[in-house]
């Protein structure tokens, strides 16, 4: 019997609300394992997991690797450079080869949006999407939700401002969908050039000036400027970004008590968050960027367990 309602986790919509609550509740137990001196439990002994990263990543890949190893699963890293692979056909060949090695779970990151669907149609192994192009990054959204859960009693009605490069961000797409699913009040803060054309997809209110809501929000979620995904210059100058969208000390002081600041990392110092704020980050208990990283391992452990720990 499966523990999750879905076999693959490609987009946030694959997960039901019950699934999400189950992952959130279990993440605490996995977090506890990370706190022990002997950071290992034998639960997924003998299970084989492949990290298949067609796009480079250190943070996400390492986070999944640590999560798998803490559960005693065998994780193998398989990196490929897209330049050596032709699109489409070769991906499937690669996957069929790997599938023949009798593996239990695939964690895949690829630079093409929507390639995951192609993969699920051609392969029989459960898949976790670790990020596909600009499309989705569901595990990032889950760890963000868990971070929020640890700071607030209830999701319903929490005011969150998702700020920055929405257009190029798979994190934005997964996060906004998930936050809305759990009943949070989402406002998008961005410049017109950083927004996708179909803003209705997000079903959220939109403003371009962060100062308009900085005092009301419970959560300030800063997105990373996706320079590597931008094929042209999306903003006139860093100064303009700073004027409307970035977090500096002045804005930080305006935020209300109990509010938190999040960022998927790594932070572009001086762009999304000022050098000054970053240098003093330890002084603010509301700064959750490092906590997000730790929570990421716990949430990924919970997800891998729920996907593999069933017959």
């Amino acid at each position, binding site marked *: 019997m499966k*523990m999750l309602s879905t076999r693959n986790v490609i987009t946030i919509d694959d997960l039901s609300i019950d699934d999400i609550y189950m992952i959130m509740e279990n993440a605490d137990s996995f977090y506890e394992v990370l706190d022990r001196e002997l950071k290992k*439990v034998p639960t997924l002994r003998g299970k084989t997991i492949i990290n298949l990263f067609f796009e480079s990543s250190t943070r996400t890949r390492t986070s999944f690797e640590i999560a798998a190893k803490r559960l005693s699963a065998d994780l193998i890293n398989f990196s490929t450079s897209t330049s050596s692979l032709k699109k489409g056909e070769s991906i499937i060949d690669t996957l069929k080869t790997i599938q023949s090695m009798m593996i239990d779970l695939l964690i895949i990151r690829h630079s093409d949006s929507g390639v995951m669907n192609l993969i699920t149609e051609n392969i029989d192994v459960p898949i976790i999407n670790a990020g596909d192009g600009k499309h989705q990054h569901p595990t990032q959204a889950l760890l963000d939700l868990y971070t929020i859960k640890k700071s607030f009693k209830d999701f319903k009605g929490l005011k969150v401002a998702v700020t920055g490069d929405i257009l190029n961000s798979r994190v934005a797409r997964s996060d906004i969908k998930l936050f809305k699913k759990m009943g949070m009040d989402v406002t998008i803060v961005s410049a017109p050039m950083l927004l996708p054309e179909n803003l209705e997809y997000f079903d959220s209110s939109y403003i371009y000036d962060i100062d308009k809501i900085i005092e009301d929000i419970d959560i300030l979620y800063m997105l990373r400027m996706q320079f590597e995904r931008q094929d042209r210059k999306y903003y006139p100058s860093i100064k303009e970004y700073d004027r409307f969208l970035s977090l500096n000390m002045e804005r930080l002081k305006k935020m209300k008590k109990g509010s938190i600041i999040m960022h998927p990392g790594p932070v572009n110092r001086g762009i999304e968050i000022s050098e000054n704020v970053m240098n003093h980050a330890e002084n603010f208990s509301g700064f959750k960027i490092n906590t997000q990283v730790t929570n990421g391992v716990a949430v990924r452990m919970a997800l891998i367990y729920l996907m593999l720990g*069933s017959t």
Partner: protein
Amino acid sequence: MKEKALILNDNDIERILKRISHEIIERNKGSENLVFIGIQKRGVPLAARIAKNIEDLEKNDLKIGRLDITFYRDDVGSKIKPVIDITDIPFEIDDKDIILVDDVLFTGRTIRASLDAIIDFGRPKTIQLVVLVDRGHRELPIRADYVGKNIPTSRDEFVEVKLREIDKIDMVTICQSEQR
């Protein structure tokens, strides 16, 4: 599940726990080196009650931890437990006499998993097992040091333990399970 017979009521349980508390003190010649670990879920309140009894008798403070053994099961997946309870052992166990507490001893696999879990936390001096009910049918060479009540059962029966901390009532019943 259909209830077949009431085995223990609240007074019976209270007396059993008092008796076990005395046995523990007797066998360990006091309580100085004792720590308690309750197996989630119902081992936890039982451990708390026994520890409190001993504290009242010995005038000391005892440490109590909670252990969920889902990560150490030998049958991951076949028995669905979607939500894992918390494991919280906030003390050193090296060289301690651990009083491990569970509600029902059956095949012994839960205890086997608990031993594996505890060993990962350190090297205790001894591990002593307390169970409220021993219902037989061991599949592994595991035995309890302190038993509340021996209840012979058949395989298709089910021993249901209810405790006021979780179920608002104290009682132990035998039930007929519909499917096993």
